[in-house]
């Protein structure tokens, strides 16, 4: 058969259908049945989502989009906000700083009352000018401290993920308990890893830890054995990996399979929940991770203040998507905080929402207990982080 244009086109279509049939993403069983709450009515409240659905941070963006969709369904099922339905305007900034800035302006023009996103530090910082001009409340899921600090210059900017420094503090607590004083750092060479590295350097300056080796690797690396070799030659008592998938599970595999590293390895909350288990396989056993309680939502005792919030989020999310993500609760809580603030303000005026957020008091979310104030646009404490490990292919709460 001679391959003409049309024959090839037909072949490609067939191949695509075949791939789509067997390659499709694992999707969990259908949506939960709608509850009996009254139907929201009136003009919808528009909330913008400016997230990284493609590009370098797409693993995060995917979780953000899932959490947001799930949340909007739940809220609209339960009567909306102020009796009005919620409409999400989700846009993909392609992990591109410029697009993130432009899309912030576009969302404002489309009349959103608040924006969730951008979801990384560089996209947020690039959009900062647009965010400040927009005057609508904006929740970022970026980890860098300067997104909300100094708060006087960030009147309408909030964030939901713990500061990198808080993750470090939580790890340090456990290290002190084990008598670990010398650590080796392996960070991904991008803004995400950089924020972790900076937090560790700060801890070292405070004299809380000694960093004996700090190596970086590219986000798309296929082998980080050389970096780990370097780190181990400095004799650390523990290795800290600051990265997201696929880098984090790759580092774990290289360490265990190739180098048989026998010191404790700590990962940060970005390492990926079930994704980490899937990608690291057997090698995941015994790895430590500092994480919000969402990862072990079904192991948290009823006595915990977050019990309710975690049950609701954990159940809905895992039922729908079949797995948990370390990033999903940031958007879930950002939207929850916005809903609470709109209800407290009794209006969708952006300024009023911002004021209400600052005076919300305690808000118990899945990520942690938020205590936002005019001085603190995050409001989380590192005590809300837990240490988890992997046993028998499952996340287990250590403490």
């Amino acid at each position, binding site marked *: 058969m001679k391959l003409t244009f049309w024959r090839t086109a037909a072949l490609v279509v067939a191949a695509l259908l075949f791939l789509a049939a067997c390659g499709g993403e694992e999707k969990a069983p259908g949506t939960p049945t709608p509850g009996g709450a009254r139907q929201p009515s009136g003009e919808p409240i528009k909330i913008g989502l400016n997230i990284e659905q493609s590009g370098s941070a797409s693993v995060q963006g995917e979780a953000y989009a899932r959490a947001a969709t799930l949340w909007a369904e739940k809220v609209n099922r339960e009567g909306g906000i102020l009796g009005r339905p919620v409409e999400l305007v989700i846009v993909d900034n392609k992990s591109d*700083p410029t697009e993130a800035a432009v899309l912030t302006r576009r969302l404002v023009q489309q009349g959103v009352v608040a924006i969730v996103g951008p979801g990384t530090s560089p996209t947020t910082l690039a959009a900062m000018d647009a965010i400040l001009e927009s005057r609508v409340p904006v929740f970022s899921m970026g980890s860098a401290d300067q997104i909300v600090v100094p708060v006087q210059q960030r009147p309408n900017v909030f964030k939901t993920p713990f500061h990198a420094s808080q993750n470090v503090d939580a790890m340090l607590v456990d290290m002190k308990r084990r008598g670990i004083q010398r650590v080796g750092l392996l960070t991904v060479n991008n803004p995400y890893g950089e924020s972790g590295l900076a937090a560790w350097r700060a801890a070292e300056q405070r004299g809380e830890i000694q960093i004996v080796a700090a190596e970086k690797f590219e986000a798309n690396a296929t082998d980080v054995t050389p970096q780990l070799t370097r780190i181990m030659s400095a004799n650390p008592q523990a290795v800290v990996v600051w990265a997201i998938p696929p880098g984090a599970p790759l580092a774990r595999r290289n360490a265990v399979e190739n180098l048989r590293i026998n010191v404790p390895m700590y990962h940060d909350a970005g390492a990926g929940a079930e994704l980490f288990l899937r990608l690291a396989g057997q090698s995941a056993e015994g790895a430590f991770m500092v994480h919000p309680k969402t990862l072990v939502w079904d192991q948290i005792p009823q006595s915990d203040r977050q019990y309710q919030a975690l049950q609701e989020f954990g159940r809905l999310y895992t039922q729908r998507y079949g797995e948990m993500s370390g990033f999903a609760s940031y958007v879930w809580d950002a939207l929850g905080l916005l809903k609470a603030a709109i209800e407290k303000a009794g209006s969708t005026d952006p300024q009023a929402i911002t004021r209400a957020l600052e005076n919300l008091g305690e808000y118990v979310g899945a990520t942690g207990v938020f205590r936002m104030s005019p001085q603190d646009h995050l409001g989380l404490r590192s005590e809300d982080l837990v240490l988890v490990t992997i046993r028998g292919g499952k996340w287990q709460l250590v403490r």
Partner: protein
Amino acid sequence: MGLRRWAPLALWAGAFGVGVLLMPIADALPFLTRANLVVFALHGIAAMGLTLVMGFAGQVSLGHAAFYGVGAYTTALLTAKVDWHPLLAMAAGAVIAAVLAALLGRIVFRLRGHFLAMATLAFGLVFYVVMRSWDSLTGGNQGTGGIPDFTLGPLRFDSDTSMYLLAWAVLLLGLIAARNLLSSRPGRALVAMGSSEVAAASVGIDVARTKMAVFALGAVYASVAGSLYAHYVTYVSPESFGLLPSLRFLVISTVGGIDSVWGAPLGSAVVVLLTEGTRELVPRFVSGATGSYEIVAYGLALVLVLLFLPRGLAGGAALLVRRAAEWAGTRRQPAPTAALEEVELR
């Protein structure tokens, strides 16, 4: 005399007016904002530099975003950290970009074939890595911010509208400069070189030097656009100056057409319309469509445009005008359409 002198001025004033008219159009279209116009103008300026390089030096550059980055980082560092005037910082960026380009050109223009493409690729990537790694200067992966607004005397360019008007004015200045250049001794040398290097050399044109000069000029365009970008976003990080932005400039220039300096703004407009248009339209046809559909649509649209308009939009438009003139029989000049189609880039 008076009329002849003022006619071009009126023409450019009209062109500026066209830019102003784009604003209500963008406002009326649901998927465009004035922020898109800013990006359109900035990318148009940078791509114009690339058009000059590709159209006249006949060389592909895969690292154009690095020069965009040189401008952006120079402005960022000089205005945010040492408080230089934006114009001075912009000039400094342009000089640095030109020098870097000249050095690079000096090395690679001795080579032949696609080596410039490769060398610029390598240069762009090394620049990207340096921006990421030189923490103390550039802020590394975290980028650097706190860049003040662009000011010009009493004027402060702090909104989308003012920034767009500024960028559009700069774009027109860039066009004027390019057209001034092309209709003069050094510009004719460029055009000559672009079509036959051996014949150009035979009338005394130093081909290597001229290529180097046009490469430096292209870098200046990119650098100026980068400086404006820094003032607009007020924050720069390496992500904006890597391989993908370089490819984007390449796409803009090619789609617009490299035979005319008008190609760059045309191409930039098309790329903005394609990205934003697919973002808006695709979800209407495919319910629940997310980012991935837009990317596919964008890629396919790009392929289709190039399949049907291989000389880009400017080339296609020129051809259309010629054909129309021929058809209407109003031709005062012969129409060498065949020759136009046969001009090949080496």
